[in-house]
């Protein structure tokens, strides 16, 4: 060979040396990416952790490489088009939205829409199912899927308030599980967030009912913004209608408290607040049978997971048969055959 072997091997040695020298720099850049929060966990990351639901996302990511965002934007546009044409309740629409979340998991809007779509639209859509048992089951399923979807979104985006709020709101408004609602809504407070969230937290406490905490939050709202009419009105209402009963209950004067609560129940027999308040007072008084009865009544007035859960808890305490609730039916089935989400 005419080329001297020194030039050749010297060259490769140089390549090796440069590559070795590059590694500390590369590692430091990687480390900085981690601390500056630049790492976007690709779906692939979860594959390593043996979460195989992300397989389609990994494949799409591999094929699209750095063009995931543009693909996500395109699919998102397509899904909006479907929605506008009135195909929003088809599974196709949902899978498009979910694909968008897989391709660009840090885009909050698709997560929000997917969760809302499941817990609200698909939930209503299930009304068309004729078989009541199946209908109830499906409705509970969709609701649960909406909640799970939002939780997954939070796992990708734990430092933005948006999805915590979305989840808290779904618990508050749709599931009506006020413990969970107040918990998730409180998470938003660590980030920049809109003013109305504190009010919703207060609403949730009101419904638990935990009147003192509700008043504290309303108070906070009013102090922050004296022109906050809603908080002001809510405070007035509590003072006017429920605070007397609440204080009597706290003092242990349960009979008087019940009488107080009955006054307003007579005015608004279906209102969730006096119903919960009455059931809660019975429970505090230790009259578990009556508490059970009133929590059950409250549970039936609307899909009220909070009241039903408390009724179920009492039923278990009293040794009664726990009435199956839709969410329970689903949970039992899930245990039998783990159902795959798309």
């Amino acid at each position: 060979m005419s080329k001297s072997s020194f030039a050749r091997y010297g060259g490769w040695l140089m390549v090796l040396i440069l590559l070795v020298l590059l590694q500390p720099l590369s590692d430091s850049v990687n480390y900085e990416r981690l601390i500056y929060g630049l790492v976007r966990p690709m779906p692939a990351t979860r594959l390593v952790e043996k979460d195989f639901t992300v397989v389609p996302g990994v494949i799409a990511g591999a094929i699209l490489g750095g063009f995931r965002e543009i693909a996500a934007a395109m699919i998102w546009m397509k899904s909006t088009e479907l929605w506008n044409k009135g195909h929003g309740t088809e599974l196709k629409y949902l899978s498009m939205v979910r694909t968008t979340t897989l391709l660009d998991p840090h885009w909050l809007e698709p997560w929000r829409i997917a969760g809302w779509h499941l817990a609200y639209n698909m939930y209503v859509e299930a009304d068309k199912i004729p078989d009541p048992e199946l209908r109830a089951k499906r409705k509970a399923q969709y609701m649960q899927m909406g909640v799970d979807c939002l939780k997954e979104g939070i796992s990708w985006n734990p430092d933005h308030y948006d999805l915590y709020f979305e989840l808290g709101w779904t618990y508050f408004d749709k599931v009506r599980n006020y413990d969970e609602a107040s918990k998730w809504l409180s998470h938003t407070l660590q980030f920049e967030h809109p003013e109305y969230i504190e009010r919703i937290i207060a609403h949730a406490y009101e419904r638990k009912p935990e009147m003192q905490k509700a008043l504290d939050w309303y108070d906070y709202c009013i102090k922050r913004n004296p022109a906050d009419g809603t908080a002001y009105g809510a405070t007035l209402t509590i003072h006017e209608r429920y605070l007397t009963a609440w204080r009597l209950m706290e003092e242990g004067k349960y009979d008087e408290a019940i009488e107080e609560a009955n006054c307003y129940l007579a005015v608004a027999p279906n209102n969730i607040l006096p119903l919960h308040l009455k059931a809660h007072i019975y429970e505090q008084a230790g009259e578990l049978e009556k508490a059970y009865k009133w929590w059950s009544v409250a549970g039936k007035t609307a899909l009220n997971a909070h009241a039903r859960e408390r009724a179920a808890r009492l039923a278990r305490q009293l040794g009664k048969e726990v009435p199956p609730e839709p969410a329970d039916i689903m949970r039992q089935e899930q245990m039998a055959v783990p159902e795959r989400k798309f």
Partner: protein
Amino acid sequence: MLRPIYYVAKATFHEAWRRRFLNGILVFAILMIGSSRVLMYMQPGAELRMLVDIGLGSIRFFGLLIAVFMGARLISDEIEKRTIHTILAKPVSRGQFLIGKFIGGVTTVWSNIAIMGVAFYGLVRLTAPRVAAAAEGESWVYSLDLMYGRVLGSIGLIFLELFVVTALAVTFSTIFSWILATISTFFIYFVGQMSEFIHQLADPERGATPVAAIVLGTIYRILPHFEIFDMREAILDPARPLPWEHPAKVVIQTCTYVVVVILIGYLFFNEREV
């Protein structure tokens, strides 16, 4: 010493700009960037996101096409068309020829990105204030100035990314025919997008066997890491600190890697019979 490099680069640059195929890509890219403005109006509430994502995505995508399809032909075409014979018979060393070709290719790619970037930046400056005024604060756009900065920063990262891609394409074109060089470059590009994934697969703490740890670890060390050009999270979020040292390190890392890649190309080209 440098003169032949300069003139080879210049000739390469001029030739590339006369290629109808590449001009076509550029025209198409500009049309696509322009259309991101139309598309964004289909997305109430996400206009700016659409504008920026589609626009920047188009620049990257078409820049990549130009870098790969042009870069992969730079050397292999000269050999296949035998134009290299008269050039290497002149006082031009193979190293000078390769570097000249590479520089010509990179300047072509960069000038294409610059044209697309200027077009897109102009579009953003024109459109964004109106959209921002109409839509009340989408959560990710905190301020328009931030977004302008983001657009410029992202274009800068595209420059860096395609620097590496062009180097890879040129190096492959010293070894393979242009078809194979094109395929190899795309392949490495997409694998390089997932280098972090390979890194995790090679992690014994995540259950990699010792053999897998060594093999995958080595592959990871050699592969280009295209993830480092993704600073979208920081550019999006004003709350995240990003001292200038980080992009500076990325620039140094990129340049060193390009030197390695071109050196490998030179070692192959030096042995290549033309």
